[in-house]
């Protein structure tokens, strides 16, 4: 349930950005979460709703863009798409993979008034 810590970090960034922008309320928060970022998106939504209560982002819509995972395949010498850790290379079926994309977690954008 580390999604709660992540939701708290999101709120920290949202509050800081909202103060800087002079927002009284935040109505939408847009995140980018990699599919290999070890985050359960539905759990994060649940936690986000919980942590923003009483803050200026209470009731804000949470939009999450999921970015695809990718890895360098040592067998193919190429970057290949991967859906989950432990999946084989879709081209050669091997497991000599080093993840190189889809692990990031960012706050992209706020909509506020």
């Amino acid at each position, binding site marked *: *349930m*580390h999604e*709660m*810590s*992540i939701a*708290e*970090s*999101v*709120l*920290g*960034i*949202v509050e800081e*950005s909202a103060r800087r*922008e002079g*927002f*009284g*309320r935040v*109505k*939408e928060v847009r*995140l980018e979460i990699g599919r290999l*970022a*070890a*985050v359960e998106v539905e759990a994060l939504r*649940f*936690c986000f*709703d*919980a*942590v*923003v*209560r*009483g*803050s*200026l982002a*209470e*009731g*804000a*819509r*949470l939009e999450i863009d999921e970015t695809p995972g990718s890895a360098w395949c*040592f067998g193919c010498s190429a970057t290949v798409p991967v859906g*989950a*850790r*432990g999946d084989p290379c879709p081209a050669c079926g091997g*497991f*000599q*993979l*080093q*993840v190189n994309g889809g692990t*990031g*977690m*960012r*706050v*992209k*954008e*706020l*909509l*506020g*008034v």
Partner: protein
Amino acid sequence: MCTTCGCGSDDVKIDGKAHGHGPEHRHDHDHVHDHDHGHAHGPGCGHDHGHEHGHPLAHEAQPQHAHAAGVAAERAVAVERDILARNDAEANANRRRFTRQGILALNLVSSPGSGKTTLLVETIRRLGGEIPVTVIEGDQQTSNDADRIRATGAKAVQVNTGKGCHLDAHMVGHALEHLAPAEDSVVMIENVGNLVCPAAFDLGEAHKVVVLSVTEGEDKPLKYPDMFTAADLMILNKCDLLPHLDFDVAQCEANARRVNPFIEILHVSATKGGGMEAWLDWIREGAGEARSRRRRSTAETATPPCGTAGGCACAATPRV
């Protein structure tokens, strides 16, 4: 303290003492504890707020506080910030401290009951002071593990995370202030027993070491791939029990390498001593590297007695 969601940052204790935080750490969600909606008036104030107090967690996203609508135009602003940036910044501060002091820091992760504390106790006992070891113990409750470490004579700090499911870099930074580890030593961080959440949090360690006991399933690396990907070393513990179990060691190793082709693997029995020497050698090698790095960086930044950075003749001249 929130008993529903698993958060517990207000409830973190270091050696039983409250870990004080400023108001910026407040979180006012309401599913267990009281919360503050930020207006001065009470619920009977006579105008519609557009949402119900005491609503369920999965409430509809609606425009809140309709009485303010139309006053200011909505604006979208780009933020573009890493969500874990703060943890990562604190982890880097811990890492700089370790580098500066020549400390090898290891983050031990596993499910509960894999034998992490026994492994640490035996490691400290067998090293016998050859390399000083101090320990940060992470558990939700009790100081039992730190007590077990202290019984070996080693210094230990217990971090109780309350309901928290992992240690973070901030907790470790505070624990280090209490622990005050010596130069050229080893700091062992025993994380909360949990094969999921600790994977995502850098504490500033040189390596995550995942401990898997042979009384667990050999498919654990496939079930919890994030942790086995994050680790540089897997210790297969309780190997003395293998004759009594159906555990398939080769399959377990194949599973671990499937999610992490670069993972090193050691077979150990902390209680009976099998494989312990290889583990101690792995620590010795890492501690040696940390020591050399400190010496190199000390040499690079050394200021001669005259205070002229970059070197001058007086550095090589014996002072009388």
